[in-house]
């Protein structure tokens, strides 16, 4: 008589971004291989992951969008993941978008993701989870490029078209790209540290998995010459908030993120970087 049940092998890998190891479990070896390629350079070996997600793979289109979706950018926050809904109830976070449904219990450090076998859904889940963790720690994900040079990290914030990809592409050999799209900023002692991320923009090139103290935030603008101009504190805070990636419909976290932005601008110089698209702009960034 044949066995009615079979042992399903559980496969896993650890994705470590911002020194936060997240274990992802799956039963599909092809999906695992795809993740290994996607997060190459960000794979951890730690056996002690800070949280763990079980991925259940379903057919594309099987995950339906939630009935209520945010259909526009929330004022004040950049939102590259249109249609994402992140809510908190009874200690659990619920993350939904048309292509995935996920749950995360921070106390248990466990969660689940229901998606098809694609790298984009889990990428969005990771961004959201990291943004939630960082919000409680005074950090954030920022819609900005970032690079490391001379042991310091520089952030370049701006909406699409402001020049994040361009300035990343112009980076000289002695600069290390952390990301061309989404920067990872963690509060550390009296300052902030930026980490490389695998979250890419038009450049489609993963950042390096390294980190450095944040030396400056530049608000990007394109113009007829390369120059750096001071920015008033209020404008700095507004611009920072406009570029913070934040998804949660949660008053406490919104307030925490708001105050984190002000802490950041009180500790990190914020300037406007106007540049023409040529490599000489990097002479100003040291």
């Amino acid at each position, binding site marked *: 008589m044949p066995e009615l049940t079979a042992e399903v092998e559980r496969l896993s890998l650890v994705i470590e971004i911002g020194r936060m190891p997240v274990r992802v479990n799956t039963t599909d070896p092809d999906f695992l291989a795809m993740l290994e390629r996607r997060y190459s350079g960000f794979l951890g070996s730690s056996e002690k992951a800070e949280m763990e997600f079980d991925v259940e793979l379903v057919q594309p289109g099987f995950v339906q969008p939630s009935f209520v979706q945010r259909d526009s950018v929330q*004022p*004040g926050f950049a939102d590259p993941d249109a249609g994402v809904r992140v809510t908190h109830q009874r200690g659990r976070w619920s993350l939904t978008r048309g292509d995935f449904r996920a749950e995360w219990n921070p106390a248990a450090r466990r969660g689940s993701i229901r998606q098809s076998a694609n790298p984009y859904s889990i990428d969005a889940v990771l961004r959201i989870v990291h943004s939630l963790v960082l919000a409680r720690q005074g950090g954030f994900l920022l819609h900005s490029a970032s690079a490391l040079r001379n042991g310091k990290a520089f952030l370049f914030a701006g909406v699409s078209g402001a020049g994040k990809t361009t300035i990343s592409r112009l980076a000289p050999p002695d600069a290390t790209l952390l990301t061309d799209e989404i920067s990872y900023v963690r509060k550390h002692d009296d300052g902030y540290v930026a980490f490389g991320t695998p979250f890419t923009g038009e450049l489609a090139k993963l950042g390096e998995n390294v980190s450095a103290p944040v030396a400056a935030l530049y608000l990007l603008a394109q113009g007829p010459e390369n120059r750096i101009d001071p920015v008033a504190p*209020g404008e700095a805070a*507004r611009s920072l908030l406009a570029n913070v990636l934040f998804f949660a419909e949660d008053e406490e976290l*919104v*307030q925490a993120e708001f*105050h984190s932005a*002000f802490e950041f601008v009180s500790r990190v110089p914020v300037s406007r970087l106007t540049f023409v698209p040529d490599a000489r702009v990097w002479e100003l960034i040291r």
Partner: protein
Amino acid sequence: MSRLFVARNPRVAARCLDGEMMIMSGRDSTLFTLNRTATILWQAADGTTPLDEIVQSKICPAFDVEPAEALHDAENVARELASHEILQISEEPIPPATALAGESR
């Protein structure tokens, strides 16, 4: 004519930076930057001081304006801020326990 009392909504986050008061709604993340009148009003909105007293003691000296006109403008500002749920307004004093929880840092 009844007096109006105003209190800061505890469900918003607020910061004053370089003279600019910025407020974010915890409900929907909307960011507001208050003008000078609204900033004075916000800072004085303790729930127990009537609006006309705030106008008399804080707004008139700052803007050199007639009290009646200033009160009219202040009421409009207060109602607009209340429509965004930044301020609470009432014809009765608003208990400090609920009024001051969201005071700006």
